[in-house]
């Protein structure tokens, strides 16, 4: 823990000069408003090509069908694009929408924004759930969503001033784009006093987002204790790349000072009751359960290792003897303790940990003292364990630079691990990487790869294309066997896998591969239910889980909520309930929260119905964009079973037992290669049976298409959707 958590390199000494260089290209007044029952019923639309600023109404139909957040983003994106639209076409949209429940300060995890765009990596919609104050402050300025189309001709910022009632598009030629600097500077430029800084939030990307396809967005909030801007990331799918392609340097929102009733909820006392109840639970049980308040999601690192689920060396193995060097107790000591760490007011789970006092070792900020936001579990697993780098200081370095350069840490971890495995197997070498020795554990090479990505140079520029394109590039150049590259390149639909080993959990293989946006764990995390607790043994059980949980979790993204307070804290008696995996008492809380804010009474069944409309809409959207059929739901074999001899041998007893007991083959006398081949046939067939069961439960055709009857049942049988599914046998 840093001795003085407010000590860091200052970047705001010159803000007057930087701001003086801005030229206002467009200023449009607006009437600030506060939501009523969670909605303003207004969307702000900005076209950067024509510099037009307009408002659109949020209709009752939109609210009934799409709710908000990710639902609004998908709906607007559908209107904006055609099947031919590419990510860098001007009509591609970036939509930011916080959702009707967002901005309440009583219930933990209620400050999320959902960002939707056509992904540079996948070509289909990406949705990302992010904290920070931007969404709620924008909502309390008057808008339920912000939709940005077009491209500016030079670097611009968009300022939404909800105190003065003005939208401005300004040039911003001098400020750096790297987020840890940009957020500090723009906050200082647009807050009118120290006290006003908490009312300002910045969205920014960074220099690597300009030169890669894997850029992320950083959403800031002002930390009054640290006197610093903190960052949370809309990480997956390259949204930061689209942002910089539109030449947006930053979005600035200056909202009103926040009060607890700004959503004008239908029943404030009802929200307060469930909010205080959850605060008490967190107070009473977090120290016994997940330690989120002290360690954030980094508490998972050694747990995943213990269950053979921590990705090591590009998802080959699930544990490593050096995991203890990056384990939770290291972070417990590195994170500043005892100060609030919520990424929105009222989040007592406070997982947004900060490692203060990191002295940067490499690159353009070498020698600077910075606060690193994290590492979270995914960052630690991806950038450290998966690359064989078990060193906390280098992990902080990678975490810091990924964030400030605007790069997704999950994607960077997985693609670096892929490069390292290719290097170790001789598919790459020093000549092919331009001198980078990408061996397991080489932290300095990992950092140089990242700096090259930020400069758009060398092998880093290739790496920044992501695993999907790297596989093509390597194959075209005759580097490696294309089948092996396909098997070990951990991406699907163009998106890199997030950081859990799914090899020994069939349900999680589906949990990753049957996702809408690509293999991210936020739709379904079923490994413990499936592999450890054996609660879903049959195909039908797994299919039910792959029906319920993705829909349940979708609901968080419709409303502007975080998933973590749902099941990273549980009531003391949760294990005694009928369905502990669903955390019934917290589902009740969500019904109370939604009903209490919007005035629309809902039941736990309604949560699923609300999500199912949007989830199926997104599936049809994928099909419309050319990627939403069965063939796109088949994972790389590394996520299903052992590709290589080393992987088989690392779990030989387990695999041999499976051969004998499940497949009915005596492993004795068989070579490892023969055993791998038999296991592979079995596991790939088993996966196909899972897909059959899941599609059936979801009401889709065997090719994964929601039929017209399903769209009718859900009330989303709009002509343009019907046309898409009919063309694909739906």
């Amino acid at each position: 823990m840093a001795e003085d958590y407010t000590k860091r390199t200052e970047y705001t000494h010159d803000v007057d000069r930087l701001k003086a260089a801005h030229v206002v290209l467009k200023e449009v007044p607006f009437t600030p408003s506060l939501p009523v029952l969670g909605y303003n019923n207004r969307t702000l639309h900005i076209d950067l090509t024509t510099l037009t600023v307009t408002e659109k109404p949020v209709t009752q139909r939109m609210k009934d069908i799409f709710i908000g957040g990710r639902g609004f983003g998908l709906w607007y994106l559908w209107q904006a694009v055609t099947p031919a639209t590419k990510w860098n076409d001007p009509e591609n949209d970036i939509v930011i929408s916080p959702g009707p429940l967002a901005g309440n300060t009583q219930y933990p995890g209620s400050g999320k924004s959902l960002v939707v765009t056509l992904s540079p990596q996948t070509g289909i919609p990406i949705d990302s759930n992010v904290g920070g104050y931007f969404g709620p402050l924008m909502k309390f300025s008057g808008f339920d969503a912000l939709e940005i189309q077009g491209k500016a001709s030079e670097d611009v910022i968009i300022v939404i001033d909800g105190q003065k009632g003005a939208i401005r598009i300004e040039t911003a030629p001098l400020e750096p784009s790297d987020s840890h600097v940009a957020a500090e500077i723009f906050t200082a430029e647009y807050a009118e006093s120290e006290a006003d800084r908490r009312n300002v939030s910045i969205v920014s990307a960074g220099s690597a987002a300009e030169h890669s396809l894997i850029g992320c967005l950083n959403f800031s909030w002002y930390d009054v204790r640290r006197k610093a801007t903190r960052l949370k990331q809309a990480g997956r799918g390259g949204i930061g790349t689209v942002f910089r392609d539109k030449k947006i340097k930053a979005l600035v929102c200056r909202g009103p000072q926040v009060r607890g009733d700004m959503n004008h909820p239908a029943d404030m006392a009802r929200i307060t009751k469930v909010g205080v109840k959850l605060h008490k639970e967190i107070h009473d049980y977090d120290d016994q359960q997940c330690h989120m308040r002290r360690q954030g999601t980094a508490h998972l690192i050694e747990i995943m290792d213990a269950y053979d689920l921590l990705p090591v060396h590009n998802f080959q193995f699930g544990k490593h003897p050096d995991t203890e060097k990056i384990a939770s107790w290291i972070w417990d000591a590195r994170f500043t303790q005892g100060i609030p760490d919520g990424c929105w007011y009222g989040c007592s789970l406070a997982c947004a940990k900060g490692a203060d006092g990191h002295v940067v070792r490499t690159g353009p900020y070498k020698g600077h003292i910075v606060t690193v936001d994290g590492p979270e579990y995914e960052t630690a697993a991806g950038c450290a364990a998966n690359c064989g780098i078990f060193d906390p200081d280098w992990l902080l370095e990678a975490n810091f630079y990924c964030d400030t350069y605007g790069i997704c840490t999950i994607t960077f971890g997985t693609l670096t691990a892929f490069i390292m495995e290719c290097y170790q197997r001789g598919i790459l070498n020093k000549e092919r990487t331009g001198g980078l020795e990408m061996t397991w554990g080489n932290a300095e090479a990992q950092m140089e790869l990242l700096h090259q990505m930020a400069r758009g140079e060398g092998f880093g520029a290739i790496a920044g294309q992501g695993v999907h394109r790297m596989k093509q590039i390597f194959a075209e150049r005759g580097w490696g066997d294309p089948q092996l590259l396909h098997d070990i390149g951990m991406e699907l639909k163009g998106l890199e896998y997030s950081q859990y080993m799914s090899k020994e959990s069939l349900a999680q293989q589906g949990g990753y591969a049957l996702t809408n946006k690509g293999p991210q764990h936020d739709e379904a995390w079923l490994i413990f239910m499936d592999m450890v607790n054996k609660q879903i043994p049959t195909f039908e059980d797994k299919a039910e889980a792959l029906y319920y949980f993705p829909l349940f979790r979708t609901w968080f993204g419709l409303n502007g909520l975080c998933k973590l307070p749902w099941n990273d804290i549980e009531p003391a008696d949760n294990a005694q309930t009928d369905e502990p995996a669903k955390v019934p008492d917290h589902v009740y809380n969500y019904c109370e929260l939604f009903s209490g804010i919007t005035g629309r009474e809902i039941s736990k069944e309604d949560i699923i119905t609300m999500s199912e409309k949007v989830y199926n809409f997104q599936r049809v959207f994928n099909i419309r964009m050319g990627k939403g059929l069965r063939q796109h739901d088949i994972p790389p074999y590394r996520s299903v079973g052992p590709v290589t001899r080393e992987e088989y041998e690392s779990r030989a007893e387990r695999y041999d037992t499976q051969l004998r007991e499940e497949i009915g083959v005596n492993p004795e006398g068989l070579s490892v290669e023969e055993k791998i081949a038999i296991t592979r046939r079995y596991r790939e067939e088993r996966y196909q049976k899972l897909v059959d069961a899941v599609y059936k439960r979801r009401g889709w055709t065997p090719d994964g298409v929601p039929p017209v009857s399903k769209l009718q049942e859900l009330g989303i049988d709009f002509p343009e959707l019907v046309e898409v599914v009919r063309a694909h046998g739906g």
Partner: protein
Amino acid sequence: MRYLHVDLEKCDGGRHCQRECEVACAKTLYRTEDVAYSAIRLLPVAGQHDTLAINVCNQCGVCVAVCPTEALKQNKLGVVLLDKKACVACYMCAGFCPTLSMRTVAGLHEPVKCIVCGACVKACPTGALQVVDKPAPEPLIPAGR
């Protein structure tokens, strides 16, 4: 530090008194006789629901560290005061108070807490309450969590 000392031996627990402390507090803080607005309450003791005991803030300061907006601060005397303008009504203080003495009231934005004004001391007919200055607070009987 200054806080409200409760002599549990002397407290009548509402058996014969008119719960004057609660009324005096609500009147002082919010000019109402509705004791929901009182920072000092007579509440059932955990496991003994027919026995009431005083529950009031002992100025321990746990809430100060939890507050995200620095709306809660200890003054020079050690009394935790709430800046209503800075409060965002997140009520984390209410959930994290070790004695559950930070209260939410329907219709009121901020939580209610004891500011050691002494109104209840004067009102108590049995002399159970006293404003004291001591190095550290004494533990109080917490309400059932």
